[in-house]
């Protein structure tokens, strides 16, 4: 398959801001200690160079295709169509199967690309990253193993104590896991710890797990990840002769959402939906729905974006069953796209996602990542509401659920 090349059609300005022209609100930027400014400039310059380096891009694509297995199928799911009311009522439903990637989620695409970039463009010898549920750590550690770079992973002490398949795999891949005892002992302080570590070691490169962090990370990650959407768009053309009517993706930091929807930003006829975790319900306050809960703008991990925080600016911990969505912010470009209304947002509760997980297993024979169940639930609801037999719906099935099995089997048995 010939993969369409990347085209920039939502560039930030030179300082890494996306500005909402109506409100004047800025998203993104580079708010970081002066100690990290040179590191970021190196990444920025390197990234610009990389995107013009044909050989780099070709080599990277070759590895993504043959190692990450990025040309995953798009599966038409008659089972889900049935559940939503039948093709004759609601049209067709397609699943982009990035659960079939190496290391079982969309994450390895940007993780591998970033590490490949670090090795070949920046000539770095070491990668620093952070992790919550270890999906990102696993992907980064895998890339480091293959590309022979050392890998340092920061993880909150609470997350480190949890039994975690992905964490164990990260260890097998040879990563050096640093446990962070700061603050909430979870993802956010681990991210801060990773950034601090990078501050001490400018020859290393920091890799972020989503479209977050200071400029140029949000730009770089979505650019790398968008190969998923470029392929999906082409596949939809091959399948139905045109782009889908809707694109649905879950949104934690926003990488899988931008990964699949970015290439459709300019297509007005394609409705794009980002789905957040409403946790125990938005009203309960225990959720990870930054956008849906209308969280204010803050400056988190180096960028302006919507942030769950209290009146004094202390960041509130998010709460959700999906550890991959357990994040108090959202990537700046996504926040910008939400502010313009180009991406519409919905939120699914943990309970709804858990029920969707069981449904997916039993009715479709697919073991989805729990993260993906938030989007599937919301998509089915939206599709039922749209009730348009002429439509084609594309849902990003962004991961496989091996690491959710123990908790979900317990949930199943507790609720039988």
């Amino acid at each position, binding site marked *: 398959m010939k993969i369409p090349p990347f085209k920039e059609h939502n560039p930030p300005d030179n*300082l890494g801001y996306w500005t909402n022209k109506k409100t004047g609100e*800025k998203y993104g*930027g*580079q*708010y*970081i*200690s*002066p*100690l*990290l*400014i*040179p*590191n970021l400039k190196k990444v920025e310059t390197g990234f610009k160079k990389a995107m013009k380096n044909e050989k780099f891009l070709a080599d990277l694509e070759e590895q993504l295709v043959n190692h990450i297995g990025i040309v995953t199928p798009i599966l038409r799911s008659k089972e889900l169509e049935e559940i939503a009311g039948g093709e004759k009522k609601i049209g067709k439903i397609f699943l982009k199967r990035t659960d079939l990637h190496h290391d079982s989620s969309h994450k390895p695409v940007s993780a591998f690309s970033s590490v490949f970039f670090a090795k070949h463009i920046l000539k770095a010898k070491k990668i620093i990253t952070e992790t919550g549920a270890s999906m990102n750590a696993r992907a980064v550690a895998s890339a480091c193993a293959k590309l022979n770079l050392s890998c340092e992973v920061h993880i909150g002490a609470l997350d480190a104590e949890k039994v975690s398949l992905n964490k164990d795999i990260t260890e097998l891949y040879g990563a050096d896991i640093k446990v962070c*005892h*700061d*603050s*909430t002992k979870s993802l*956010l*302080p681990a*991210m*801060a710890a990773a*950034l*601090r570590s990078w*501050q*001490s*070691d*400018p020859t290393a490169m920091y890799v972020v797990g989503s479209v977050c962090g200071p400029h140029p990370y949000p730009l770089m990650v979505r650019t790398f990840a968008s190969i998923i959407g470029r392929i999906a768009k082409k596949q939809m053309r091959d399948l139905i002769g045109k782009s889908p009517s809707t694109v649905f993706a879950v949104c934690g930091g926003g990488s899988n959402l931008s990964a699949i929807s970015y290439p459709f930003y300019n297509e007005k006829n394609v409705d794009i939906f980002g789905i957040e975790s409403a946790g125990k319900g938005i009203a309960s306050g225990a959720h990870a729905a930054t956008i849906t809960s209308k969280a*204010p*703008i*803050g*400056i*988190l*991990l*180096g960028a302006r974006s919507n*942030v769950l*925080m209290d*009146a*004094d*600016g*202390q*960041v509130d911990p998010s709460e959700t069953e999906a550890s991959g969505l357990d994040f108090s912010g959202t990537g700046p470009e996504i926040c910008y796209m939400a502010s313009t209304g180009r991406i519409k947002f919905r939120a699914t509760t943990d309970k709804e996602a858990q029920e969707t997980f069981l449904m997916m297993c039993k009715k479709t024979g697919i073991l989805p990542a729990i993260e993906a169940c938030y989007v599937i639930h919301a998509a089915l609801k939206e599709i039922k509401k749209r009730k348009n037999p002429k439509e084609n719906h594309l849902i990003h099935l962004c991961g496989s659920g091996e690491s959710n099995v123990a908790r979900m089997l317990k949930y199943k048995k507790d609720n039988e």
Partner: protein
Amino acid sequence: MNKTFQRIFAKAKSENKSCFVGFVTGMDPDYESSKQILIELSKYCSVLEIGVSFNTSTSDSSIIMSANDRAIKSGAKTEKIFQLIKDVKREITSDTAFVTMGYLNQIHVYGIDRYIEDCKKSGVDGCIVVDSNNEAPEDDQIFKGLTKNDMAFIKLIAPTNDSNYIKQSLKKCSSWVYIVSYAGVTGSKDVNLNNVKKLSKMIRKQSKIPIGVGFGIKSLDDVKKVSKLADLVVCGSSIVEKIKEGSQNGLSNKNLAQFVGEYVKQIAKGIE
């Protein structure tokens, strides 16, 4: 230049000495103890740098992060830090400068203009905003607000920053500039004098602004050495560690203040 700093630097010059800067996280381990510590430290410090806690800071060492945690737990909020400074200033007579140190998110949420106003009201002489990018619109706004109100905008400069970055930073520094002695986090390594020399040289080419040095200064000897090179010697993590040690040993309020003061007194003697 801010008036307080003007006086402090003049006095230091007259004594042929540099100035000692003591850092603590505001309200670590609690409001009252922190107040007593600051009062006690004012005896030995020309400048008191007071940290405004942020639970997701990207540049603090674990030592400072823990202090932040303790402070937040005891109710630290931006407005309380202003209150603390006011309370401290009310009880001291020394001519000590007060500097806040924090992250942009706190200020942004508080409101930049309101923050500057409250700085002014509580007698703050300058602000460090660790993650305020020189090129960001917020940075301009802070710079303008502080300048207008005769307060110092104190920028950090790291050994890895290039001359262009230094130039940009110096443009916004009115009272002094803060040299970070090594690429790392506070308290993690020993002060790096080579870096300091190199950076000072670069700065001196462009400006006569007083230079402060921090990161890794934790002994009498460190203070002595840095004192020779810098106008201000900043000591943070090791003081914060003393606060932790004392309070873990059951000390609080004046007792804790005395315990910490004793330490600061000793190392501040290195000022030459």
